[in-house]
């Protein structure tokens, strides 16, 4: 029982990342009709926004300490971050400690700008080209972005810790009447789940309750009619591309403390996210979210030792297995609408 609760929590956490990335993918696909293989790279860039903010906050003045020596016997270089110089060591250290949450503020404009640029400079030229061309160009873009990040940050993962207040784990089991250590779950992963709920809720409310969102939804349903009504739908779709990039970026920022960011982390999520989108139904936003959490939880259950003892290796194939079953029984995916991706 405790194992199942634990893996459910875990699945919700994994599902959060899948859902956020798949949500952005679906937003782009639903509005612009583009299959964006660079979406994983946007997630990765988000994580590196956290790294960048951490780097900026720890920019340091270097002073030489004649009393200490470095490994070559020269006077040691002592680094003091500027923020500690300006705000005093305690407040300064506190600001550095909170670099990941602060990175959210940094990431939103940066990611929207990157999304905007991507759409205006490159992707809009591919709207009327076949999906295969779109996939090739966005996949190529993903590789370019990856190598650019590698050039500046190296290939090694960069540790980006969460604030000390959220380090460690909560003994969840004790709260609901289990023995200690039965259900222990990290604080930051719980926060990640809550954060994803907020972001998903935000995107849905934005589309649901604002005029802008209403126009976008109308455009997703019938682009030509909205155009005929004199509304510049392309401009709004470009903005949606920026928002989708920001969603992927935020997912990346908050993911940075979970696993140290590296330049190829986007690719690890990309394929899974496509499976999520297909299972959820191409073009369906609720489908993407539902499928994200569902596949996350299934993947976690499949890695239970008891289940792996019956079917070895099931944890590695479960997602694809489910995808095959769903596509065979419901070719449009869980919540897919008629007419999307169909002639």
């Amino acid at each position, binding site marked *: 029982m405790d194992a199942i609760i634990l893996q459910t929590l875990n699945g919700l956490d994994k599902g959060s990342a899948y859902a956020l990335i798949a949500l952005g993918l679906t937003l782009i696909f639903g509005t612009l009709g583009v299959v964006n293989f660079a979406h994983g790279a946007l997630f990765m860039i988000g994580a590196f926004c956290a790294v960048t903010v951490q780097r900026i906050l720890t920019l340091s003045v270097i002073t030489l300490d004649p009393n200490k020596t470095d490994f070559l016997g020269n006077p040691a270089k002592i680094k003091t971050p500027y923020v500690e110089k300006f705000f005093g060591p305690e407040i300064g250290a506190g600001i550095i400690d909170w670099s990941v949450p602060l990175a959210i503020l940094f990431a939103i404009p940066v990611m929207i700008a990157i999304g905007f640029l991507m759409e205006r400079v490159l992707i809009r030229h591919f709207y009327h080209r076949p999906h295969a061309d779109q996939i090739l160009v966005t996949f190529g873009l993903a590789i370019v972005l990856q190598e650019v990040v590698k050039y500046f940050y190296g290939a090694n993962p960069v540790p980006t810790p969460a604030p000390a207040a959220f380090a460690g*784990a909560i003994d969840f089991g004790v709260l609901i009447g289990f023995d200690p250590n039965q259900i222990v779950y990290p604080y930051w992963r719980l926060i990640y789940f809550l954060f994803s709920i907020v972001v998903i809720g935000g995107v849905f409310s934005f589309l649901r309750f604002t005029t802008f969102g209403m126009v976008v939804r109308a455009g997703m349903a019938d682009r030509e009619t909205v155009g005929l009504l004199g509304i510049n739908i392309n401009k709004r779709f470009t903005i949606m591309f920026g928002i989708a990039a920001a969603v992927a970026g935020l997912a990346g920022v908050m993911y940075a403390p979970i696993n140290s960011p590296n330049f*190829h982390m986007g690719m690890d999520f990309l394929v899974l996210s496509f499976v999520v989108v297909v299972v959820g139904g191409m073009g369906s936003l609720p489908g993407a979210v539902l499928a994200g959490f569902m596949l996350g939880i299934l993947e976690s259950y499949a890695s239970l030792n008891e289940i792996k003892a019956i079917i070895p290796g099931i944890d590695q194939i479960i997602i694809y297995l489910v995808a095959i079953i769903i596509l065979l029984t419901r070719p449009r995916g869980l919540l897919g609408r008629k007419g999307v991706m169909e002639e």
Partner: protein
Amino acid sequence: MSKSNLTRRGLLKTGAVAGAGLALPTIFDGATWAASHSGFTNAPQGKTVTLGFNVPQSGPYADEGADELRAYKLAVEHLNGQGDGGMLNTFSSKALDGTGILGKKVEFVTGDTQTKSDAARASAKSMIEKDGAIMITGGSSSGVAVAVQGLCQEAGVIFMAGLTHSNDTTGKDKKANGFRHFFDAYMSAAALAPVLANKYGKDRKFYMLTADYTWGWTQAASMKEFMEKEGWSMVADVKTPLASTDFSSYLAPVLSSGADVLILNHYGGNMVNSLTNAVQFGMRDKMVNGKQFEVVVPLISELMAKGAGANIKGILGSSNWNWKLQDEGTKAFVKSFGTKYGFPPSQAAQTCYVQTLLYADAAQRAGSFNPCAIVPALEGFKFDGLGNGPTLYRADDHQCFKDVLVVQGNETPENEYDLLNVAEVTPVEKVMYKPDNKFFAGGNLGQCNSGA
């Protein structure tokens, strides 16, 4: 009328060769001379000799590959008499004199393994066939090392393994043309087990997560063997796919499994993530079975420690070498590497540098670049002054035997490179094994291949 093939010219030639052979019996015998200047793959012509450095230049291990390449370039400089000479000054063998190898200037070509066996074989093949590399060295993965070693054996060139830690490299996959200076999974376990039992007590239950490939399996099997000898008992050994990035679903059951130690048989990015995840799950500050829960990483490298950040603090593991050692060889190497690049070298850099020197020295002593002359020069070779203390290149399996370091994540690093402390130096006798040990059985060196 019978026709004789004997001509005046032919007679003169035969006589001259025979005369030379008789006149110089102590320097050359005809066969060796011929074999050492032709009759083997990529016999160097002209005034230079080309070495092939096959390291990951792209992909997740690119930073480690970059450090290996720095070390190789430094070794080439030192062999050619540039720079301060580094470990050539402390090396017990004095055959090398800074004039290249056998009087030929050392040049090099590089290949990108991408940490993929097929890419690594392709780049090694290209360096051998197109660039005329006489020796291939490098690697940051045992899968790659085993693949490239097999290729070099077939091609008739020497393979000097870089960072590869699987028992199989000099065990069931050993080859006559391949040599490994780096230590192996068995030695890590043999060195770590007594230290772990001493620090954490005899009555412990351990849970293992193991990367699902050749290195992971041999590391897990070795750890199990040695920990059980110390009285520990294994709760589970869970294989994790090499492509895993998030280990939470494998870690979630650990705390409630009754285990009080977690052993992570992971390397590189896998290890950075699994250790980071384990610390998130509170495994560094929980009490289980009335004991402090502990995490162990059998193989720790500097780059992994850097990637794991503060999570590495206090974690025990093993290393082949550490720049903080105080022997003369290490000091000389750290000085020349640090002066050239501005930071201390990693253990991957050290093993690559040393392997290049060992190859050059063997060629110099053998008086030939012929692989079948170099193999006997390295077999049973005893040396010192290269940073690991007295070392033996064992003839039976082409594995180096030397002291093993037990390292621990530094709790109070003074700078960004000060990540690991040497907790203990386990003497070579404690990690020595017989060539037919069960973890290494099944392989056969075979015959050296010169490509002739």
